Structure formats: C-alpha cells, structure tokens
C-alpha cells in the first residue's frame, strides 16, 4: 500500500513536471507567434511545420553556446542564481488540484500532489522566494546594471506581494478555507469565485504580472535603461534558465488564477458529462478544461506584453502602494460587511 502510494505520487509528479516544462517550452514559440500576429508578421516558421520545432532548436542553441562566467563575479552564487530561479518556478505546482479523483485500474487516484491545509500560503511563499534567484544572480554578476535590475526586482516583488496577499485574504473570507482542493470543490459547476470577488481578481491579476516580471512590469530587465537588467552577464544555458523560469512562473500564475477564481477543473454541466463518460474519462475532461483556462491566461499575458508599454519606475511604485493596496483593503472591508449581512439574513 505504502509503496503503491509512493509510485503513484512519483508518476504524478513526473507527469506534472514534464507537462509544465513542455508548456513553458512551447510558450516561447507561442509568444513569438503571437507577437508576429500582433505586429502583422509571420513569426518563426522555418523549423518544422509552422515552426513546430523552434523550441527544440532554441534549446539546442542554448546548450551549445559558450558559458561565460565573469572574472570578478562570485562563481558559486553566479551559478546558484539561475538554478534557484528554476527551482522555485518548478515547486509551486505541487498544491494545485489538476482534476477530480480519477479511477485508474480500480484505484482512486488524486490528481493533486499534496493537499496541505495551507495550500494558498504555500504558493504565496514560493512566489516570495522566487525573487532570490534574480537577486542573487544580479548581485553575483558584479555589474552595476545587473545590480540595479536585482534591486528593482526585490523592491517590486515586495511591493506587489502586499496587495496580492490582501486580495487573497478577501478570497479566504468568501471561501473559509486555505486548502486549494476545497476551494476548487466549492466552485462546482459554474459557481466560480470570480462572481463573488471581481475586484479581488483584478488586483490579483495585476500583481501576478508584477510577480512574474512580465511587461508592463518587466523593469528588472528593462533593456532601454539597464542593458539587460539582472541577466546582463549571463549567457548560454544559465540565461536560458532565467528565461525558462519566467515562462514556468507564467504557467504557474495562470494555473493559480484559474483555480482560485475561475473554477479550476469545474465547468457548467460537468455532472452530466461525468455521468455519461464514467469515473475515468470524466475527470480527465475536467483536467482538459483547466488546461484550456490556463492557455487562455497565458495568451492574455502575451497579449498584454505586446500591447501595453512598460511602466516608469515611479509609476510602478505609485500603482502598487497608492492604488492597489487601498483598493485591496476596501475589497476586504466590503467582503466582510457583505458576508456579515448575508449571514444575518
């Protein structure tokens, strides 16, 4: 029994790992294709049919490029930076419920690696840890532009964690649980949290953009001011690790937003579909729906990147501290008052 449990979890982790790496790899292609579409170009189209093998070609290129470590840098930390960025991007997906329990070979398999009862806080912790990779890498490069990028990343991450946490508090008031699994179960059918927390979702969305360092909040790598930001000195696969971590974070942020606010694996009419298709296929369809939602969010991330220009640094701080935090606090108060009155009735 114990061994079967370990094997089951091991397979699940391997599958989630390879799927998220695959999604991240093809996000790089999707980004360039969408950029091409938005700018009336074709985008990469030479490697394979419609550029299908472009991520593989890019990966090979990254591997074969020369790895340069600056002479005046601290070498251990220079390598630790991108490794840490990649690690923190990978471990967040452990608490996301990818679907309802699936019946495989007379065994009810949970499609969630672990259901700790502080699931949301775990994701929050992993997100707050993500900035260390950028900070350590930027500092170890011993380059003033890298250092500026690292310092910007730190202040931006701390500033936007506060409204993010506050918007989650309002969500917790509405759902009464910290467990991702229970939050997903509560949104059965079309009873999604976005209906109860529209403002909270908006704040969470903006903060996700800031935490994943995506445009319009990509000031840590602002090339017009800082050459290349925190990864100015990086080349080859270490540079690729930073880039890959960004796409992995985007995938994780999309999965978290889909689960917290857009019902996760739930969709209208899911009971009927589950009855028709049985306990094996039904939950897998739910998982497909979750991935569809994730892809829509990833598209949204890219759409915004090629539409909205980058913020100036003071605008970024003003938005975070003077607009988002008061809005998030107001959201908590409104949610609390409404819940009190609804309970009274």
């Amino acid at each position: 029994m114990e061994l079967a449990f370990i094997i089951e979890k091991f397979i699940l982790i391997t599958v989630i790992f390879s799927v998220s790496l695959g999604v991240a790899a093809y996000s790089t292609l999707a980004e360039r294709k969408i950029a091409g579409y938005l700018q009336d170009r074709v985008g990469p189209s030479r490697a394979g049919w419609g550029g299908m093998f472009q991520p593989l070609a890019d990966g090979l290129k990254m591997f074969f490029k020369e790895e340069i470590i600056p002479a005046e840098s601290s070498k251990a930390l220079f390598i630790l930076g991108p490794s840490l960025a990649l690690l923190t991007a990978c471990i967040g997906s452990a608490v996301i419920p990818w679907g309802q329990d699936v019946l495989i070979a007379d065994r009810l398999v949970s499609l969630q690696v672990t259901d700790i009862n502080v699931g949301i806080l775990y994701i929050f912790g992993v997100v707050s840890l993500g900035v260390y990779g950028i900070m350590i890498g930027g500092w170890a490069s011993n380059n003033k532009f890298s250092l500026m990028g690292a310092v910007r990343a730190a202040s931006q991450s701390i500033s936007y964690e506060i409204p993010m946490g506050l918007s989650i508090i309002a969500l917790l008031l509405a759902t009464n649980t910290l467990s991702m699994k229970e939050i997903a179960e509560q949104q059965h059918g079309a009873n999604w949290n976005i209906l109860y927390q529209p403002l909270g979702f908006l704040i969470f969305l903006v903060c996700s953009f800031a935490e994943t360092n995506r445009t319009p909040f990509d000031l840590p790598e602002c090339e017009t001011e800082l050459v290349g930001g925190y990864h100015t000195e990086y080349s080859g696969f270490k540079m690729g690790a930073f880039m890959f971590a960004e796409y992995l974070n985007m995938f994780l942020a999309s999965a978290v937003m889909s689960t917290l606010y857009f019902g996760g694996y739930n969709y209208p009419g899911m009971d009927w579909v589950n009855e028709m298709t049985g306990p094996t296929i039904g939950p897998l369809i739910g998982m497909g729906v979750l991935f569809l939602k994730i892809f829509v969010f990833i598209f949204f991330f890219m759409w915004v990147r090629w539409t909205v220009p980058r913020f100036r640094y003071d605008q970024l701080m003003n938005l975070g501290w003077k607009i988002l935090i008061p809005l998030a606090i107001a959201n908590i108060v409104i949610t609390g008052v409404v819940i009190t009155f609804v309970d009274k009735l």
Partner: protein
Amino acid sequence: MSISLFYFVAFLSIFFALLVIFAKNPVHSVLYLIVTFFTFTIHYILLNAQFLAIVNFIVYMGAIMVLFLFVLMLLNLNESQGTSKSAIVKMIGVIAGMCLVITLVGSLKALHVSDPLVLQTQDLGLVKNLGKVLFSKFLLPFEVSSLLLLSAMVGAVLLAKKDIKQA
C-alpha cells in the same frame, strides 16, 4: 527516526547560524541566515505546526530577508571596509564575549531537564485550531500586539515623511 531527523536538522541550524557569523562578506552572511530560517521552517513542520511553518517561510524568508539583502546590495560593502577595527573595539568584544560565555555556563549549571511536554491534540498547530485559540483565549494579547505593529508602522511613515517646514 523522528529524533534522529530532529538532531540532523538542529545540527544544520546551528551550522548555518555559525556560518552567518563567520562569513566575511555581509551578503553571504545574509544568505546563510536565509538557510538558517529555512531549517527553522523544517523544525515547525516536524512539530506539525504547518501554519507557523509557512508564515515563518513567507514573513522571514520571503519578506524580511529580501529587505536585508536589498539594503546590503544597495550599500555594497566591500570586505576591506568591514574588518578594520581599532584595538579598543577588539578588547571590548573579547570582554563582552567572555561575559556571555560565563552567563551561558552558569545557566547550564543551573539547568534541570523538565518533563517532556505532551500535546493534548496533535492538530494544535493547524490553522483552524490556531485561529480559534488566538481569537478566544489569547484575544487581548493578540489585539495588543497588533496595536504595537500599527504604532510601529505609523512611526515608520512619520520618519520617512519629508519635513514640511524645510520644503
């Protein structure tokens, strides 16, 4: 199993805490301190206090240490700047260290091992029970400490505010 795991993690805590002191470079010091806090998180998880573990993780590792690192990176201290101390400072350091050692040895002599504390409920550290206890049994200390944090925040804002008369 559990006891040996505890001793291993405790060893790691002390080891990295010592590295914090012995590291020459202040940024390395802070990084070792982060690892030390991470071992504390493991201790909390071993005690089945998941909420405390994750809060320690978010607040200390994720927020406070980022600020420490931020400030140190901005100052960008060199190794040569930190080590030049006068003889008087070194003497004072030795005396203070000796006083600490004497106090520690004295307290170790007076130490007697208390009975092992047995938890009535294993789930005491889970977030639901912790919240219930905080808002019923320990309501007054909880509210007072929140007032303390609020006053600290007001003080920080006051210090950071530009002087209106000078402007």
